[in-house]
């Protein structure tokens, strides 16, 4: 039977529509009230320590839980008070709480560089003494040695960060708004994924009505599952870590390494079973073909391609028996996969452009027939801003940012900074806004842009690697403006809420991170994920940051043109073959994403996808299952987050009262 050809845009939109069960509304109300603001601040600040702690313990911050906890508390209070919560309020609560919880994570780089500056890797690659003072104080400074972010040594890095944050807010708000007006108002792109977020707020707003809906039940099931899993995976190691020198891990965090077990029949293959089975929930939500093809491609890589082809032909030549997953991964990366990965990324850019450029032509033609596009006037009462004002704010924000970078790295050519700021960033943002508007995700990305820039600029100092560059992408953020529109929340209320909560979060984030750092050195046995990953990350960072220092660095040697070409052309050939045989284009993203990856990291996701596809859909029906998915995932994240919050509270209290004898 001949297969019918479906265009990529139609294929992706069909998937997006599975989640889109709500129609947009066009009446706008403010979502910002005093109770929303206080509620967001309360729950956000309560969960922020847990979120930071979890990220060091398990690699997952669990920050997704906090907004839902806030919303549940809010809706419960509303029900007990015989009142109702509006969806605008709940969406605003989701956003503000998310910002509050995430506020601690914004300072994570300080802790990372405080560790990095004193690593043997940084010393051996001779960059420890070249890290600029605006990144981290000196390795032997009191602020680093005593693990205190509140020490005056940190004044310069934190001051620079805050200046960047202020300018960044100016830029992102104004640019996102302008792009949203262009893509949503003028061109009327559909933003197919935006209704998913809007549906979350709607789900819980319904619970404050007279009748309890299915959403509450599904959320509760997810929460209980999350609580149980969170206790086993995070709670036990964290609590035993308080009492014992070596925490008990029921399941080893973050993985169980089988790499040495398979090396007999699959040398150079890696297989490390990732033990975070919370990933199953992502398997429920992600499109089944992507999860399946990704896993098959990863298995084929590690059990056929690596050992039988690349190893036999001595392309993977650094491998030797007895290495663990991290070492094999590093060597395989240096030998082949880093170069091939670059090529794969370039193929995404080509495929993205090939898919989006014809869409532009199609949109232009259909505009004439529909007769609706081209109207730039916003809907009434949406709380819009003057375009000229937003344009001015963006210029001020970007100009200030370029000046700041120029001050940080005065010898780096200014022309590159200006080119990034005023040519690349607007173009890149517009392309991304368009792809989000049509496909609900990013397609366009130029990989290794910084590295290419540094080579072209012939600037050889290490400090440029630590400086931010003005190559930004605001397109992704335009989707949140669309969600505001769908939930009927006025733009002005959202902006006011964001600006009001920001100063509080700037201060509280740094104080909380300071105390978590004080509990124990990061990384250490208290923080198993950081202990496992940070040393290898430090090696990688050293390799990158020294890659342009001399002509024969390890990283430059690792990037080989023929391997980059193989990754690039091979990926294009896969895409072409899939198109030729009329197979779903999403297989491409699965196959190319899975090639070179560790299949053990995908087991949980695969399990979730298989259960969803072959049991849940049959049990509940396609439409209901896709309605349940986001709510179930939110409930699970909430349960895990609550456990994380509880255990970090116990750990913090314990560390605060135990006086060490030394």
């Amino acid at each position, binding site marked *: 039977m001949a297969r019918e050809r479906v265009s990529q845009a139609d294929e992706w939109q069909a998937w997006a529509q599975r989640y889109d069960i709500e129609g*947009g509304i066009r009446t706008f109300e403010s979502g910002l009230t005093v109770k929303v603001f206080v509620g967001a601040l309360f729950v956000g600040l309560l969960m922020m320590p847990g979120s930071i702690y979890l990220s060091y313990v398990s690699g997952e911050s669990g920050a997704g839980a906090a907004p839902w906890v806030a919303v549940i508390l809010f809706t419960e209070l509303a029900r007990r008070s015989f009142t109702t919560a509006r969806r605008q309020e709940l969406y605003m609560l989701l956003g503000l709480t998310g910002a509050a919880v995430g506020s601690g994570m914004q300072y994570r780089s300080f802790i990372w560089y405080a560790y990095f500056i004193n690593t043997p890797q940084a010393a051996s690659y001779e960059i420890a003494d070249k890290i600029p003072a605006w990144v981290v104080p000196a390795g032997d400074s009191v602020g680093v040695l005593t693990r205190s972010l509140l020490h005056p040594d940190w004044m310069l890095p934190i001051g620079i960060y805050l200046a960047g944050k202020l300018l960044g807010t100016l830029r992102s708000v104004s640019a996102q708004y302008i792009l949203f007006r262009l893509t949503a108002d003028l061109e009327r792109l*559909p933003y197919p994924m935006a209704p998913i977020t809007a549906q979350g707020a709607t789900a819980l707003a319904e619970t404050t009505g007279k009748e309890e809906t299915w959403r509450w039940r599904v959320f509760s099931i997810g929460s209980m599952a999350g609580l149980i899993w969170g206790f086993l995976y995070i709670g036990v190691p964290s609590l035993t870590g308080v009492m014992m020198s070596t925490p008990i891990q029921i399941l080893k965090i973050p993985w169980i390494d089988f790499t040495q077990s398979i090396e007999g029949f699959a040398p150079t293959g890696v297989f490390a079973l990732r033990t975070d089975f919370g990933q199953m929930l992502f398997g429920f939500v992600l499109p089944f073909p992507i999860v399946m093809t990704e896993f098959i491609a990863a298995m084929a890589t590690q059990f056929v391609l690596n050992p039988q082809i690349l190893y036999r032909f001595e392309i993977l030549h650094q491998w030797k028996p007895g290495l663990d997953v991290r070492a094999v991964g590093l060597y395989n990366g240096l030998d082949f996969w880093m170069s091939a990965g670059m090529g794969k990324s370039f193929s995404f850019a080509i495929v993205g452009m090939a898919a989006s450029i*014809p869409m532009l032509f199609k949109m232009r033609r259909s505009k004439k*027939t*529909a007769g609706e596009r081209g109207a730039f006037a916003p809907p009434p009462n949406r709380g819009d801003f003057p375009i000229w004002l937003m344009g001015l704010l963006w210029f001020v924000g970007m100009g200030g940012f370029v000046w700041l970078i120029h001050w940080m790295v005065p010898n780096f050519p200014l022309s590159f900074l200006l080119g990034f700021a005023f040519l690349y960033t607007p173009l890149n943002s517009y392309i991304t806004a368009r792809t989000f508007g049509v496909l609900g995700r990013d397609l366009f990305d130029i990989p290794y842009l910084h590295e290419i820039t540094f080579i072209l600029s012939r600037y050889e100092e290490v400090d440029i690697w630590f400086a931010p560059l003005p190559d930004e992408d605001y397109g992704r953020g335009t989707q949140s403006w669309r969600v505001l529109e769908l939930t009927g929340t006025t733009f002005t209320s959202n902006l006011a809420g964001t600006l009001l909560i920001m100063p509080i979060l700037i201060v509280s984030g740094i104080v909380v991170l300071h105390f978590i750092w004080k509990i124990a050195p990061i990384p250490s046995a208290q923080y198993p994920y950081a202990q496992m990953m940070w040393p290898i990350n430090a090696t990688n960072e050293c390799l990158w940051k020294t890659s342009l220092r001399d002509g024969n660095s390890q990283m430059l040697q690792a990037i080989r043109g023929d391997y980059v*070409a193989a990754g*690039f052309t091979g990926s294009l*050939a896969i895409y*072409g073959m899939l*198109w030729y045989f009329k197979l779903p284009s999403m297989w491409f993203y699965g196959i190319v994403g899975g090639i070179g990856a560790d299949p053990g990291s995908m087991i949980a996701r695969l399990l979730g996808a298989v259960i969803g596809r072959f049991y849940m859909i049959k049990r509940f029906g396609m439409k209901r299952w896709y309605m349940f998915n986001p709510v179930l995932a939110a409930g699970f994240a909430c349960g895990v987050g609550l456990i994380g919050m509880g255990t970090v509270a116990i750990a913090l209290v314990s560390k605060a009262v135990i006086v060490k004898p030394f």
Partner: protein
Amino acid sequence: MERVAGFIIILGTLLWLFSVIILEGRWQWQMFSALVLTIGIFCAHFWEELRNTDSNGESSDGQE
């Protein structure tokens, strides 16, 4: 147009396999294959999106 796009894609894929297996993976030949494949993929998408512009355009509007 569909057949032309398919032909170019097949040609590009065969060229790539040839460059890897016979020409020892020289990047110049691989990139030439990539150029052929890119042309084929662009042709494919242009044909795909613009074949029934009128009807498809209206249906995508309707989703709003």
